[in-house]
């Protein structure tokens, strides 16, 4: 771009910015992607207070699953004393990252704890009681002891270090950062530093850019050097003037000694500018194709907090144990940003911000657009927690029918048709939702924000996505079961053939012997006694169970038998069922008798006793089964 055209575009940009103050529609001409909304940001709430640091909670709760992928495996024991930065859970499975102790203290429990997750389920976590000394391990990452083959290869060493440091995407997704990076240099053309932070209320990235711009840039340079990335773009939304100033200053300070120059780009303030696809489209004019990732078109995007964690790992040798969190909301008198340890409970942080009234409502994890209301407020900050929001619940609008106004399609940044998606998701027509590209939806919430009927559109999409994922998982399981069943049938067939072959060989041998001894006598084939296999027996039992149920429903009794085309077989089935039922009753009686015996004899029943009783019951059942078989054979 020549300087003249650049000047022109700058001028037109300035003009549009001025114009949009008067004509709201002009705001849409300031950026390149479709849709988007302009909500109330409330960002000044938490920015009024300076950054807080050094809060020491009473207990730290560290879930083993802090990221996408497999959970880490705990490697400490209850009662053990740990030092700051010590590994407390290892990454044994692929696509997992280790977990480090955020401070020194004692492990008081390794047990399920409620997760900061929409479901509110409890999962394995390590609970540490800090001793307040904050004693740190020296050289926690042991970068000098990398596997020897990693030493020559800067990329392998880099990925190894950030894996060991437990670095995951801190913008929200929590994807392990090492897994996002390629294995060869030169594949990445652009590194985009995401400082857009477009969700209302959240200012933790803003605060980080204001206070630690040099560390973010150092992380970006380390990444760019290792992967030989020629371009670095630092994108910040225009509503963060202080952050822009700080970053510009830091870039000017570093320019002399760095190889790659960082290009600072001020992007328009619109929600969801911080979305990966939206920001790439805005900065480079490129769209990521369906089912592809940014890396496939040579782009790596990192959140500012992630880059700082990378700087800590690569340049300082420190694992990722703390993060910036915004504690904000209308229910708090003194909202703030805090640099806090991973594992700090939400409710303690909310109490620090002087709640206006007692927090008897559920907090929101994340922002008001994409965040979720928690089931339990006593859940820990994890590596992906960017905001704790205490907004007292507003009166809920009753969702009304879709009036097909098309507002939602106007604002969808991915250019989907939200009303069609809603229609099919509500009717559980999942094939059709996929035809309308449900899985391209980024769940940004723009559609639900503008919907005049107050339909909780995003929840319909989340539900539909979950259902489709489960359907796929079940289809995979069914396929697996089918294959295993076929493999089993093949095996049984093979074994049968082998047995027959063996039998034939034996017979031939006997014949030959007999022929030698008494050539006149003929050997007759032995009667083929086909015994029922265990599986067949079980199937008969299953059938009988079903038939018994049918018989027990009195309504269907005579009529059903008559209407059945194969009446005799039904009759047989019923007989069998009856016999089976009788037999089962007998078995149960025997069992009960045993049990009452047991009870009268001793209170504590040993395993041996149980086994004996079960054996007796089994005998009774076996007898019963025989009776059933006979009746079904008859």
């Amino acid at each position, binding site marked *: 771009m020549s300087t003249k055209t650049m000047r022109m575009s700058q001028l037109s940009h300035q003009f549009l910015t001025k114009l949009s103050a008067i004509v709201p529609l002009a705001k849409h001409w300031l950026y390149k992607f479709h849709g988007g909304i302009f909500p109330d940001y409330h960002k000044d709430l938490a920015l009024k207070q300076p950054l807080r640091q050094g809060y020491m909670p009473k207990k730290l709760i560290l879930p083993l699953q802090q990221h996408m992928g497999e959970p880490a495996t705990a490697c400490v024991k209850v009662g053990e004393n740990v030092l700051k930065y010590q590994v407390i859970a290892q990454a044994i499975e692929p696509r997992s990252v280790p977990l480090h102790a955020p401070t020194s203290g004692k492990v008081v429990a390794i047990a399920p704890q409620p997760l900061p997750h929409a479901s509110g389920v409890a999962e394995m976590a390590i609970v540490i009681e800090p001793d307040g000394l904050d004693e740190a391990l020296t050289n926690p990452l042991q970068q000098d002891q990398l596997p020897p083959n990693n030493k020559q290869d800067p990329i392998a060493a880099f990925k190894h270090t950030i894996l060991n440091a437990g670095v995951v995407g801190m913008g929200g997704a929590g994807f392990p950062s090492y897994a996002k990076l390629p294995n060869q240099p030169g594949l990445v053309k652009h590194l985009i530093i995401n400082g857009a932070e477009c969700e209302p209320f959240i200012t933790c990235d803003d605060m980080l850019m204001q206070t630690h711009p040099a560390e973010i840039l150092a992380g970006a340079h380390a990444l760019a050097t290792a992967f030989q990335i020629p371009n670095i773009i630092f994108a910040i939304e225009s509503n963060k003037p202080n952050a822009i100033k700080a970053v510009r200053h830091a870039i000017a300070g570093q320019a002399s000694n760095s190889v790659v120059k960082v290009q600072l780009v001020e992007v328009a303030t619109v929600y969801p500018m911080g979305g990966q696809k939206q920001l790439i489209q805005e900065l480079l004019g490129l769209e990521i194709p369906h089912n592809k990732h940014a890396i496939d078109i040579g782009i790596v995007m990192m959140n500012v907090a992630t880059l700082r964690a990378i700087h800590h790992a690569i340049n300082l040798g420190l694992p990722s144990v703390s993060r910036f969190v915004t504690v904000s909301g209308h229910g708090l008198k003194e909202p703030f940003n805090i640099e806090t340890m991973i594992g700090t409970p939400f409710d303690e942080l909310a109490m620090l911000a002087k709640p206006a009234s007692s927090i008897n409502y559920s907090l929101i994890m994340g922002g008001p657009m994409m965040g979720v209301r928690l089931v339990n407020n006593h859940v820990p900050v994890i590596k992906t927690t960017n905001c704790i929001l205490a907004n007292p619940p507003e009166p809920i609008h009753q969702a009304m029918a879709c009036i097909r106004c098309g507002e939602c399609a106007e604002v969808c940044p991915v250019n989907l048709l939200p009303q069609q998606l809603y229609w099919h998701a509500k009717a559980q027509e999942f094939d059709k939702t996929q035809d309308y590209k449900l899985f391209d939806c980024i769940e940004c919430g723009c559609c639900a924000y503008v919907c005049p009927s107050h339909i909780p559109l995003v929840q319909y999409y989340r539900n539909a996505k979950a259902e489709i994922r489960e359907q796929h998982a079940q289809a995979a399981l069914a396929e697996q079961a089918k294959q295993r069943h076929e493999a089993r049938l093949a095996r049984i067939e093979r074994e049968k053939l082998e047995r027959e072959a063996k039998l034939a060989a034996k017979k031939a041998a006997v014949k030959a012997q007999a022929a030698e001894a008494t050539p006149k006598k003929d050997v007759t084939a032995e009667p083929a006694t086909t015994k029922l296999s265990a599986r067949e027996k079980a199937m008969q039992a*299953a059938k009988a169970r079903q038939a018994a149920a049918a018989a027990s429903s009195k309504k269907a009794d005579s009529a059903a038998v008559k209407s059945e085309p194969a009446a005799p077989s039904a009759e047989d089935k019923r007989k069998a069922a009856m016999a089976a039922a009788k037999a089962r009753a007998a078995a149960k009686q025997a069992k009960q008798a045993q049990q009452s015996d047991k009870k009268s004899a001793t209170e504590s029943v040993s395993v041996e006793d149980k086994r004996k009783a079960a054996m007796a019951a089994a005998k009774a059942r076996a007898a019963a089964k025989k009776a059933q078989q006979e009746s079904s054979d008859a």
Partner: protein
Amino acid sequence: MNAWLGILLFLALAVAFGLLLGYAAVRFKVEGDPVVEIIDQKLPQTQCGQCGYPGCKPYAEALAKGEADVNLCIPGGEPTMLEIAEILKKDPKPMAAEATEPKPPMVALIDENLCIGCVLCIKACPVDAILGATKMMHTVIAKECTGCELCIPVCPVDCISMVTEEVSSKNWKWPQPNSVTRIPVEVKAVES
């Protein structure tokens, strides 16, 4: 003369197309009965035999031949019945009363203290999901178990029970805001 030319030309064309079609019939021959495969795809592959056939495939074959009713697969329940009826262009039939209730997915669990190592359950399991050897403790590979319950009746010491899978953050599903209820197929009232 021209008339003969026309006839010859069309004869030649007929022979050429005949050969082409004949070749195509051999080259692109469809193996087996595709309807069986399609139905088999829709069956839950639990291989439980509650339909009265020794597995899902035999039931699919019987359905394709028109020998079986569409409403026999208990684990598949009503949705499967509707799909089968759709494929076979038959009228849907109500399921047996107990089968219309969708059961949560379950897997078998062997009480390892009670197991006597009789290997009977291994013989009964249609998908080889049980691991063990004679006089050794047995265990169920939960990942492979289809929940068919065939191993339950064969166990002489009754040490196998069915358990539901626990909800975790991985398998938890967002609920629908106000979930729609499925409209059941009309159940014919039968006089007693």
